[in-house]
C-alpha cells in the first residue's frame, strides 16, 4: 500500500508572530514545525504500513526551509518525500491542491492520502477537499477514528455536540485527520539519524505548470488580534465578587 501524507511547514503555535509590511511576517527567527494535525496523519500512515506493508511518502508544498519539517516526518517513519517549492508561506488553496495532485500524478497514484483537518497558519480547511475532487476520490474530514479493511475505510467524524457520523468509503480515498485518532510517536535518536539519509525529491511549482498569479484569494492585510490589556479583578469576599460579576454581566456587558 502506498500512502501519501500531505504535511505543511507552519510556525509553532507558541511562537510570537511578528508582522512585516501589510501582509507578511518575519519567518526567519521563529520556530517552524509540522502542522500539528498532520502529525496524526503521519502516525496513522506509518502504523498502517507497519502492519500491511508498503511505503509512506510525505508531500509538502512550501519554502525550501520546509526540509526540517520533512525530516521530522521521516524520523517518525515515512520512507521518502516530495517537496514542491514555493516562495511564499501563503499559497491559494486551489493552487496547493493542484500542486499536490500534479506531484502525485508524477510519482504514481497512492492508495490513500492523509492530510490534517486544516493548517494552523491559514486555517482555510479546504485543500484536502479540492485534492480529493481532482482525483474524484471520496473524502472525509475531521476524522478521529479510522479502520481500514479489505479495500474499505470506515471513518468517524464529529458533527457537533459530541454527535458522530460513521462513514464508509472505498480506497483510494482522502482522510483529513484530527486529534483523538492516535498518539503521534516521539522519534528515537537512531530514527532521526536514519531520516537524514532518506530521499527528498524537490520540484518547483512552475515545473508542475502552476502559476502563482492565478490564485483567487489574496491576503491584503495581516494585523494582530487586539489583546486584552488585563482583567478587571473583582474585589471583596467571594460572595461580593460573584454578586458583582453577575451584575456586570447582566447590566454592563448585557451578555446574560
Amino acid at each position, binding site marked *: 500500500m502506498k500512502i501519501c501524507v500531505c504535511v505543511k511547514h507552519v510556525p509553532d503555535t507558541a511562537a510570537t508572530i511578528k508582522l512585516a509590511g501589510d501582509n507578511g511576517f518575519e519567518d526567519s527567527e521563529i520556530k517552524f514545525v509540522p502542522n500539528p494535525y498532520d502529525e496524526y496523519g503521519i502516525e496513522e500512515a506509518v502504523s498502517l504500513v507497519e502492519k500491511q506493508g508498503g511505503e509512506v511518502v510525505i508531500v509538502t508544498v512550501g519554502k525550501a526551509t520546509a526540509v526540517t519539517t520533512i525530516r521530522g516526518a521521516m524520523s517518525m517513519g515515512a520512507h521518502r518525500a516530495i517537496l514542491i517549492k514555493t516562495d511564499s508561506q501563503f499559497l491559494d488553496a486551489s493552487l496547493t491542491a493542484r500542486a499536490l495532485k500534479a506531484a502525485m500524478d508524477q510519482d504514481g497514484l497512492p492508495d490513500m492520502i492523509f492530510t490534517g483537518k486544516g493548517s494552523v497558519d491559514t486555517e482555510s480547511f479546504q485543500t484536502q477537499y479540492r485534492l480529493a475532487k481532482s482525483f474524484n476520490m471520496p473524502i472525509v474530514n475531521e476524522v478521529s477514528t479510522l479502520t481500514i479493511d479489505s479495500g474499505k475505510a470506515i471513518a468517524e467524524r464529529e458533527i*457537533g455536540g459530541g454527535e458522530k457520523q460513521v462513514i464508509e468509503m472505498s480506497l483510494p480515498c482522502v482522510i483529513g485527520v484530527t*486529534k483523538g485518532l492516535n498518539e503521534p510517536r516521539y522519534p528515537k535518536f537512531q530514527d532521526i539519524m536514519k531520516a537524514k539519509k532518506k530521499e527528498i525529491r524537490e520540484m518547483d511549482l512552475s515545473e508542475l505548470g502552476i502559476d502563482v498569479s492565478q490564485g483567487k484569494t489574496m491576503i491584503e492585510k495581516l494585523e494582530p488580534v487586539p489583546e486584552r490589556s488585563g482583567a*478587571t479583578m473583582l474585589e471583596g469576599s467571594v*460572595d461580593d465578587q460573584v454578586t458583582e460579576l453577575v451584575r456586570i454581566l447582566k447590566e454592563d456587558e448585557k451578555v446574560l
Partner: protein
Amino acid sequence: MAKTGILIEIENNTVKDTSLGVMTAAAGQEIYALVLGQDAAVVKDKLAEYGASHIVSITASGDLSSSPDLQSQALAAAVTEYNFETLLGTASATGRDLFARLAAILDQPLVSDCVQVNIAEKKVRKSHFSGKTFATLKVNGSVLLCTIRPNSIEPVAAPTAGELIEFVADVADPGLIKIVETKKAGADKLDLTEAPVIITGGRAIKAAENYKMLEDCAQKLGAAVGASRAAVDAGYAPHSMQVGQTGKTVSPKLYIACGVSGAVQHFAGMKTSKVIVAINEDKDAPIFSKCDYGIVGDIFDVVPLLTEKL
C-alpha cells in the same frame, strides 16, 4: 444588491441563531434562504423576519440527508439556477464540510470561518495563525463562498415579505461515501461551537464527575460546557469538549474559564469571545492578563455560588 444565498441550519424545526447571524452578515443584499431537504414552510416566517425575500426549499430525487456529496451537489445546482454572486453559511461542523465540498465542485475560492464579510468589495476578515492575527482577504471568484464563525455577527431583524419557492435539484449521489450510522451524544447537548455562552473547566476540575458542577451552572446560563486540553488528556472530559488550537474554535458572547491557566493554545480557540471571565486560585495565573474579568478563588467555592446567584 447582490443575489446572496444563505445556507440555513435548522434544529427541532427552529432556525439556529447562528444562521440568523449569517443572514445579518448579508444585510442589504437580495437574500435567498436555502433550506436543504427539510420543511421550509415551518421556518418561513422567521427567515422572512430576518431579511430573506426568497425562501428556497431544496430537494432532489434522492434523500438529501444520506450524503454530504449529494447535499453539496444540490447546493451547486442552486448556485447555477439562481446565479448567486455570494453564498454564505455557518462555520459549523456541517457548514465547513459542505462548503469545502461545494467549493471543490464549483472550483471557486472559499474562505472559512470569517468574522466579517464585505459582499460589495468581496473582502473578508478571518483569523490566521491560530487566532493570533486577523487576515483581510480579497476574493476574486465569480461566486464568493464563505462560512461565518458562529456568534461573530449578532442577528438583527430586517422584516421582508418572504416568498416560498420549491427547487428540485437534478443531481445524483456520486456514491463515493456512505453514512452508515449516526452516533448520538449522551444527552441533547448544546454544540460548543455554536453556544452563545460557554463555561470551561481546566485541569483544576480534578475528576470527570466534577463537571457536574459546571453542568449545573451551564443549565442556568444556557451554556455549553468546555474543557482544556489538560483536562481532556487527564481523562476528565472527551475530546469533543476541548476548546483550543487542537480542539474547537469558539466565539461565544460570554466565556467563563474555571481553573484554566491561559495557555496560547487554549486562547487560540476562544480569544474572539466577546467577554472572557476567569476564575483561578492563583492571582498570578497568566489568564488574568488576557481576560476581561477575574475572580481569584477556588472554583469549588466560586462556581456553586455563581450557579446560586444566576
